[in-house]
């Protein structure tokens, strides 16, 4: 298959692996920020192809995992309002809230529908004019422009019963927060699809101020190995900078149309991340002039203060401080079929990935 087979060629992967082994001298820690990268590393067994000097840690790039418990509890509360249809990406319905999950609420009679695109929830709104459709907006700069476009379309087509509960987040503040918090990182394998939207300027501070290497990577094994090689060369030569490995998709200026749509619909706000607390200007809030589409404005729900599951170390895992195998619940009390923490639910969650690809 085009764009897949050529990036999974065994000989190519092994040749990059050999090169890496000859280049890498210092002990370094690289963080793959994106859950898609974590999956690729484990799916293709890439860790075994790296020299012992290079350690990979997983970052906070799985949208489901970083969504706060409060957001999940809010979604649950909305699902119980009569006449409300919750439209959501599939992963979210199994995330345990403080007391229940959307999947359980659906069994209790709530109308919860899985969509693959936010635009499907617009269609649901159009075909159910007497109901209120609330789309649960999660994700980073990759999915946020789609939500923004849906809101603009709802405005243009005058669809009064479509709303968004936004937990959309942006990447740069959390990457910076991790570095400032003192997590040992020498370089970032930066998220390919986020950067396709934002462009690379968002990483300049990390390189120039924090002195870290940043390489924007694709998601196939050759992409990942090449990005790791590029980072290693940067670090070994003492010339950290921002580079793009994923050139077939990412351009340094990003997707300017998407950037504009984001600006038109959202503004930055301080936002709460699971395990990381509140990070200034890291969340996307729907602008006041579009508040008729903002579920938080239009519906009032009482949500008791949220409680994180006991013993779950998702927070430390999201900060790269621990790995799932350090968690006493991992693969015992917490499994994909009966998850305790959000990182075990999403296909891109670090715990789910470790569980799926454990050997």
């Amino acid at each position, binding site marked *: *298959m085009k764009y*897949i087979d050529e990036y*999974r060629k*065994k000989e190519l*992967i*092994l040749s990059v692996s050999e090169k890496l082994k000859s280049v890498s001298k210092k002990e370094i820690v690289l963080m793959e920020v994106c859950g898609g990268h974590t999956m690729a590393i*484990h*799916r*293709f*067994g*890439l860790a*075994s*192809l790296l020299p012992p000097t290079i350690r990979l840690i997983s970052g906070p790039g799985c949208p489901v995992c970083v969504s706060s418990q409060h957001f999940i509890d809010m979604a649950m509360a909305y699902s119980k309002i009569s006449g409300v249809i919750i439209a959501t990406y599939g992963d979210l319905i*199994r995330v345990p809230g403080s007391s229940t999950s959307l*999947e*359980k609420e*659906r*069994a*209790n009679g709530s109308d919860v529908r899985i969509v*693959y695109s936010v635009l*499907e929830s617009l*269609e649901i709104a159009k075909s159910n004019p007497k109901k209120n459709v609330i789309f649960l907006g999660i994700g980073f700069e990759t999915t946020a422009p789609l939500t923004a476009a849906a809101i603009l379309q709802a405005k243009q087509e005058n669809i009064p019963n479509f709303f968004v509960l936004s937990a959309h987040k942006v990447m740069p503040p959390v990457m910076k927060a991790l570095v400032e918090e003192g997590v040992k990182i020498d370089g970032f394998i930066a998220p390919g699809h986020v950067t396709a939207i934002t462009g690379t300027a968002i990483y300049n501070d990390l390189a120039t101020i924090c002195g870290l290497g940043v390489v924007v990577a694709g998601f196939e*094994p050759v992409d990942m190995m090449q990005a790791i090689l590029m980072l290693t060369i940067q670090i070994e030569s003492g010339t950290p900078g921002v580079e793009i490995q994923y050139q077939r998709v990412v351009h340094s200026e990003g997707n300017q149309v998407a950037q504009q749509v984001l600006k038109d619909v959202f503004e930055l706000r301080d936002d709460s991340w699971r395990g990381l607390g509140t990070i200034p200007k890291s969340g996307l809030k729907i602008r006041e002039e579009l508040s008729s589409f903002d579920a938080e404005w239009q519906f009032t729900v009482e949500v008791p203060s949220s409680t994180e599951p006991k013993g779950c170390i998702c927070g430390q895992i999201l900060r790269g401080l621990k790995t799932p195998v350090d968690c006493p619940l991992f693969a015992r009390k917490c*499994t*994909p*079929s009966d998850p305790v923490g959000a990182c075990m639910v999403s*296909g891109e969650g670090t715990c789910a990935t470790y*569980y*799926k*690809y*454990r*050997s």
Partner: protein
Amino acid sequence: MKHQDDKVMLSHGSGGRMMHQLIEDLFVKHFRNKILDEQTDSAILSVGSHEIAFTTDSFVIDPLFFPGGNIGKLAVCGTVNDLAVSGAEPLYLSVSFILEEGFPMKELEIIVESLAAEAKKAGVLIVTGDTKVVNKGKCDKLFINTAGIGRLKKETRLISKALNIKSGDVIIINGTIGDHGMAVMNARESFNFKASVESDCACLNHMIRKVLEEVPVKFMRDPTRGGVATLLNELVEKIGLGIEINESALPLNKGVKAMCEVLGFEPLHIANEGKVVIVADQTDGDRIIEILKNNKLGLQSAIIGRVVSDHPGKVVLKNETGGRRIIDSLSGDQLPRIC
């Protein structure tokens, strides 16, 4: 029951871990008997000096019509295949309908014609049935239940029990995996994938009979809901050995591969309705492939892996780059109502 207020969730019907838990914790607990405890695809019953296989299946697929078939064809194939993989020769079926008030008679006729045509092809007679109609909105268009009876031969009567499997035995499948699940998904969701993915829905009894007549088979099962991965995981639990699957040997339709890449699905977890997984001695592997390839339902047959003594109880997938990973049973609700 774990808690008084627990409810049935869609995941309980997915063919994966949660469904098995429900079956174990509730159904088997209350229905327990010697025959049921065998937990084979079909129940094996003694009637006088004869042994018969008996099975049942319900069909709630949405949409009723999909590329490669419809609910009627599926209702015959599902039950015929359950009997066939038990080593039985399928003979008789029952068909019961639950119809929603207002369902178009014309569509019902198309479905019934498919049932009849498929039964004829499979060489089974539909000998009894039942019809119920419920008020509009009380069921979704049409549900079908079929039950089937087949004759067991002495030499194949123990095939579902997976006895005598040993390290080195080969794992065979009769063609591409995941076609049914992805075809239904493509027909149902608004993806508009251009890929032409057709369900593999087909009765396998004639092809299976040919294999059984010529070669000793140690185990057979049809990888429906939960896919090949769930089937193999159940098998390794039973036999106390491991299984190693070779990723590059897995027959995969291009469209299915593309859809799985885009949607992040594992093809080994996707449902099939015209596939059989066969375990046999390695010396019989090539002969089985030859027989399968002589049938149009087995053109892409392949040896996809082996039974190993390493990692007992685990199914491990070896990929092209040398990476190895555990393939678990499907957990949760990948796609409800695919059969």
